[in-house]
């Protein structure tokens, strides 16, 4: 599986930072969530439209994690690379790398599934494999 990378440039604002003048770490998870949403928007899959017009019920998280290498400070401008790293059954893995002045500052990982509405199920949703039309646009095919 070849990765197809979506890039985001993000300025680190006052509102992102904590009293140590670095990004308060939960804000990185918010940034990653935005990057994931925007990656889907880039290919024309708008979460709110899909929810209103199809049986799409969301992309619930199963697991998240981040490794922190260097702090990111108020005033920095960072580059975030986002891609789908793995699709395995009903689960897919989104990875994020955040670079600050060319250096890797942190890496994030989201394990998600694609859920559809399932009124008969106690949780109201059930997981299905990532639909082919999304997978084909987000994940570059192996060269023949």
């Amino acid at each position, binding site marked *: 599986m070849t990765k197809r990378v979506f890039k985001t440039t993000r300025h680190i604002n006052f509102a992102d930072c904590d009293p*140590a003048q670095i990004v308060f770490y939960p804000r990185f998870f918010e940034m990653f969530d935005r990057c994931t949403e925007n990656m889907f928007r880039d290919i024309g899959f708008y979460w709110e439209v899909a929810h209103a017009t199809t049986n799409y019920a969301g992309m619930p998280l199963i*697991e998240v994690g981040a490794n922190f290498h260097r702090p990111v400070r108020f005033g920095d401008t960072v580059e975030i690379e986002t891609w789908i790293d793995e699709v395995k059954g009903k689960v897919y893995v989104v990875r994020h790398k955040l670079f600050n002045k060319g250096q890797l500052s942190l890496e994030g990982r989201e394990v998600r599934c694609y859920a559809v509405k399932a009124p008969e199920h106690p949780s109201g949703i059930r997981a299905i494999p990532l639909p082919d039309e999304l997978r084909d646009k987000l994940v570059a095919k192996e060269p023949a």
Partner: protein
Amino acid sequence: MDAAVPNRLRTTREIQFADCDPAQIMFYPRLFEQFVRCTEVMFRKAGIHWEQMLGKSDYGGIPLVDASARFHRPLRFGDTVEIESWVEEIRGKVIVIRHEVYNRGELALEGREVRAYTVRDPGSDKGIKAVPVPDALRDRLLGTTY
């Protein structure tokens, strides 16, 4: 949830409007904010007040090395949850903190923070350096009864 474990901090938390996303469940970065609050309380009870990192001592903070969570069940707007937090391990410079969130008695998610203990190091680029956790703090973090 094990009520017999005395060295776990227990926090009760209502899931409010401001915590939730358009799916009417807690937006997951808010959970990490809650973990930070619980960790800060544990350190406060062990005698480390985080505001000390801002100039009142040589304490430099406990920056994160790794943070993660596993989600089992969603937390919905209006739920009241119980959070158990504890220091699982202190190994040299590293402190491992665990959090478990229970909703109506069921484990809804688990969180883990790996942090480094630091002191000020004004000569370095980062201004801090990681050092082994002082024995007295280690004993307090592992031995505090809540």
